[in-house]
């Protein structure tokens, strides 16, 4: 059973009417397979939301640490005027895992806003991709988007990839995109060691600091869980 793959294919749809607000949080730690990539869940999920009415808000928050392969793009269609869409994501991959995740923000109404914060962490021989679309329709006056896509690499056999798509058809749109790629440096780990913090704890500290912006979006009890999960998923990946 553990040597084979299982499929998890879920569909979630959210509808927010006028002035309604939905916050949807996920922490996923399905079986990722063994170190060599044997077994594990295929996690192919469809998640969509629509802000139907004016001033509606949908916020997706996800912490993805498990599954052999994850394909997942929680999206928001911003149809109502002044509606808001948010996507906060931390995706951790280790060993042979693959995660391909991101979001779509479709701006249709006027004065719509979206915010994307994606934090990828790759270790071992894993591959981690952000794939996202920001689309501003012709009549979507004054649309605003801010995207931040950061990647953190541990070791030199893993990969991080960023595929942002921006399709802007209205000149009043303000779209900002920021991306960084960094490495957990030996010198950071040594600095922690020198203060009495062992390497595992140092990695947990650095990773949680890096993912803080997303983790703080989670409900309290989830956040504590997620922090521990990050540490466990990365166990043995440095040193």
């Amino acid at each position: 059973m553990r040597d084979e793959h299982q499929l998890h294919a879920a569909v979630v749809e959210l509808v927010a009417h006028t002035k309604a607000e939905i916050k949807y949080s996920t922490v996923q730690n399905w079986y990722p397979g063994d170190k060599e990539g044997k077994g594990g869940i295929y996690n192919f999920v469809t998640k969509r939301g629509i802000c139907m009415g004016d001033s509606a808000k949908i916020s997706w928050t996800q912490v993805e640490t498990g599954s052999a392969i994850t394909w997942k793009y929680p999206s928001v269609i911003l149809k109502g005027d002044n509606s808001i869409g948010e996507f906060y994501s931390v995706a951790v991959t280790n060993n042979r895992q693959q995660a391909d995740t991101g979001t779509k923000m479709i701006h249709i109404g006027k004065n719509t806003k979206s915010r994307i914060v994606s934090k990828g962490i790759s270790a071992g021989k894993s591959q981690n991709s952000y794939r996202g679309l920001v689309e501003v329709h012709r009549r979507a006056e004054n649309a605003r988007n801010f995207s931040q896509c950061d990647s953190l690499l541990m070791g030199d056999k893993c990969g991080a990839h960023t595929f942002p798509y921006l399709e802007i058809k209205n000149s009043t749109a303000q779209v900002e995109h920021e991306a960084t790629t960094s490495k957990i440096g030996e010198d950071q780990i040594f600095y922690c060691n020198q203060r009495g913090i062992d390497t595992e704890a140092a990695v947990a500290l650095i990773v949680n600091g890096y993912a803080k912006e997303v983790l703080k979006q989670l409900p309290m009890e989830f956040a504590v869980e997620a922090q521990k999960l990050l540490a466990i998923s990365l166990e043995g990946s440095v040193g």
Partner: protein
Amino acid sequence: MLSIRNLHAAIDGKEILKGLNLEVKAGEIHAIMGPNGSGKSTLASVLAGREEYEVTDGEVIYNGTDLLELSPEDRAREGIFLAFQYPVEIPGVSTTNFLKTAVNEVRKYRGQEPLDAVQFLTRMKEKMKLVNIDQALLSRSLNEGFSGGEKKRNEIFQLAMLEPKLAILDETDSGLDIDALRIVAEGVNKLRTRDNAVVLVTHYQRLLDYIVPDFVHVLYKGRIVKSGTKELALQLEEKGYDWIKEEVSA
């Protein structure tokens, strides 16, 4: 407390320390000076356990144990503190959070209960006064975007929080204006007790006007070639290192 005998160390196959001897007793302050590239920072790194450096010969006994056998974190937990020449930046991790983790890891190792949030904050407030550092700086990501002076003061603040037995200050005085230098020196002086020791690695005699050492050593070509008291440092300031080099080659 610390006994270094015939220490040889290399990086990338190149020998930097070539038979270094040093004895440090509790309550003492030692200053290690020397021209650029003489091995001062290598010594500090080897004592703290930086892995790039390979110890090829000799021994380091610290309070009766073989220091070189210990991992970097265990050296820290045993009371060795290195104030880094170039403190490292860790984005997203506040100084407060970092130190809370460090203090409690050290306590765990020593079989002590972790400090709770209130106890920790009380201790922090007390030590903050010592080095004149403010709360805003401690809430920011560790060392990120700090100026040189802020980083160095933060190192001394960490020193105060961790209360080590042996503090090694690697060029902590470099790049400080006179006010910052005084704050750093006062911090070190206030933390001085009969049971702990300080090793100052420095480039500039000026620091020794504020922290008075019991011994001054000159490191040259990987070895301590001359030892003396504060007067030796004054001589070095006045005459430079050339006369030492001549003495060595003579």
